[in-house]
């Protein structure tokens, strides 16, 4: 085969370029710490990167939603805690009145105590979180309970997404907690019972007091039972929050595997491709300048 110098030079040049390209790619990977710096470096990984990034954004949002919802639920929960102690107090006031041998003025005082408790509970039922009434159902902008305890909220409750396919309901409507009246437009049962208790104490209607106390006690039991759903939801949110942090870690780990450069490997590759480049450059210097023409005399 004929070999002409131009072949040698063009081969040399082409090889040098390939070697330089390899060095560049290795330097890029080493300096960015990523093996995927362009979509074309690994199209499948780039596609997965997009999807997992979106998943991470979802997870972040769910975590954020959880913290917002927790704020609202905690407020409602502590309001209900106060309601429980208020109603407990009402029961003991009722029991005291039912004990008999009390003067009219003492009974009046006890009746007023029940009235105060009623006002306290109505105030607690109108608790707000960041300007929204937490026991108004979804009619959060208007005060749900009138001074007499008539409910003007609705019975719907918002659910918030707190994970892929996971929702948490944002508490309960006031009427579920305080008992919807048999006739619309009347105060909720708890408040009816409190009013009844108060008036029966004041009028010393001893025969009715036992029923009144039992009614208030059943309201109290209902509040305690409903309050437990808040505890359940808060617990669900806590464990969901832990799941989400775990999921985020997994996703981040997945992303690292997708696009991260294996630094040890890159360092080895880099030193190899540098050696190759140096060898090619040395070879270029050695391309023989010898030719038969040098020997013509």
């Amino acid at each position, binding site marked *: 085969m004929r070999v002409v110098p*131009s072949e040698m030079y063009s081969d040399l040049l*082409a090889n040098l370029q390939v070697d330089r390209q390899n060095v560049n790619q290795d330097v890029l990977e080493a300096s960015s710490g990523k093996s995927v710096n*362009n979509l*074309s470096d690994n*199209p499948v990984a780039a596609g997965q990167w997009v999807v997992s990034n979106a998943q991470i954004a*979802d997870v972040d949002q769910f975590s954020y939603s959880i913290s*917002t919802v927790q704020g609202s639920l905690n407020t409602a929960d502590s309001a209900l805690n106060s309601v429980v102690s208020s109603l407990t107090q009402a029961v003991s006031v009722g029991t005291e009145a039912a004990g008999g041998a009390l003067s009219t003025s003492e009974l009046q005082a006890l009746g007023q105590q029940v009235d105060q408790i009623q006002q306290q509970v109505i105030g607690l039922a109108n608790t707000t979180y960041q300007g929204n009434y937490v026991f108004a159902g979804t009619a959060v902008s208007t005060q749900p309970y009138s001074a007499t305890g008539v409910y003007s909220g609705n019975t*719907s409750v918002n659910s*918030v997404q707190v994970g892929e396919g996971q929702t948490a309901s944002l508490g309960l409507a006031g009427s579920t907690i305080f008992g919807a009246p048999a006739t619309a437009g009347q105060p909720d049962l708890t408040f009816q019972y409190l009013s009844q208790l108060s008036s029966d104490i004041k009028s010393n209607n001893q025969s009715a007091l036992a029923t009144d106390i039992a009614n208030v006690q059943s309201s109290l039991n209902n509040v305690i039972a409903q309050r437990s759903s808040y505890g359940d939801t808060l617990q669900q949110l806590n464990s969901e929050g832990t799941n989400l942090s775990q999921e985020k870690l997994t996703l981040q780990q997945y992303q690292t595997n997708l696009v991260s450069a294996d630094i040890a490997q890159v360092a080895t590759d880099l030193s190899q491709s540098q050696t190759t480049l140096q060898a090619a450059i040395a070879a270029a210097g050695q391309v023989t300048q010898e030719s038969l*023409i040098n020997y013509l005399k």
Partner: protein
Amino acid sequence: MGSLTGTLSLAAQALEADQGALQVTSNNIANANTPGYSRQVAVFESAPTVTEGDLTFGQGVTLAQVQGIRDNVVELGVQQGLAQQGQVNSYLSSMNQVQSLFNETQGAGLQTPLSNFFEAFQNLSTDPTNTSLRQAVISAGQTLASAFNQAASGLSQVQSGLNTAIPQAVGQINQLTGQIAQLNGEVQSAQNSGANPSQLIDQRNNLIEQLSGLVGVNNITQSDGTVTLTTSNGALLVAGQQSYNLVTGTGPSGNTDVFSQQGTDITTNLTGGSLGGYIQARDGSNGVVAAEQSLDQLAYSVGNAVNSQQEAGYDGNGNLATNEPFFNLPANGSTGTASMISVALTDPSQIAASSAPPPATGDNGNALALANIENQPLPGLGGQSAINYYSNFVANVGTEVAQATNEQTAQDLVVQQLQNQKASISGVSLDEESANLIQYQTAYSASARVVNVINQIAQTALTLGQGS
């Protein structure tokens, strides 16, 4: 019976032939680095013999011709290799621009604005009456719309760059075909007059190689020495001494198209060379126009889904949001959506977060439904969610660039191989020329010696019979 004068003229003819060969050799040496030069060889032939009686004498040597050494098959291979190389080079450089617009690994692209937009609805669902969360939804929508706008304008810049590059390439093609046609004439007349056309053919091949880098050509060498060139899809470029200019103009799709001299639109199926690469990058199945359509489809599907969900809900003022679309979208079809999409809502209270009429102002049903559009299969996206559709789009762009890069590497090697093969046949080897130099020099010296000997014999003959 041979004569002294006959021998003398034979030797003189040999001197002449050797001189000619020396000239061919020194021309080769002089052109050792001339691009496209094919080495030439002196072809010696023994002169016709003379028969006198029973004896036949040789009449010496003639330099019959000077022949250029080339292999047409390899030359055609080089031309085709260059055409494919030119195409993949210009295709890749355009697709690289497209890739950089969506380089998610460096944070460019639509994933973040798309996610943020839906997360803003998700966030709103936790507190639907909160004005600042509503405002955040509008801002996220504006960011998403402008991300679509920017991507679309980036693509349209690549597209208009291609529309500008096409006439430039066509201008160069026309210039080259003109020169090739002229050289066709010169080769033909050199061949007719018996002159050596080798260097003209070299020049012509050089120009055809340049032409191949611009557009793929079919090359047929005619018996009169001229070449006929047509484009890959058969449009005539050069025949004999006549060249046929390509022209550019606006095609049916509003892009710059290429027309034959007869006015036929030959853009489709025009392959090879940078021109082929430009057309592939613009009109190809994964080219810029296709990317624009995908982006439009994505913007349109997302925009429509958001609009219809928004219009099904109740806004912050308790009104059914029937006439309050979230995005402005084109009236007919998806075309151009990405470049024109914008947020129609101006007031945070217009967002329809509630799915129930008043007083349920705090209902979040519709906000949740809007947030969930993110992961729902959308009509127009082939049953995929917006993120999955976009992720496939991104992976497609990457795959296209990766394939073109591999093809470029392979094609560089092919061209390198072919050019080496061509050089090995036609290139000048200084060793070989030096050997020839020695050979012809020796032959010249020998013939000169013959002249000298004949001269001495002639002297002897002239003084024959003179006593000394």
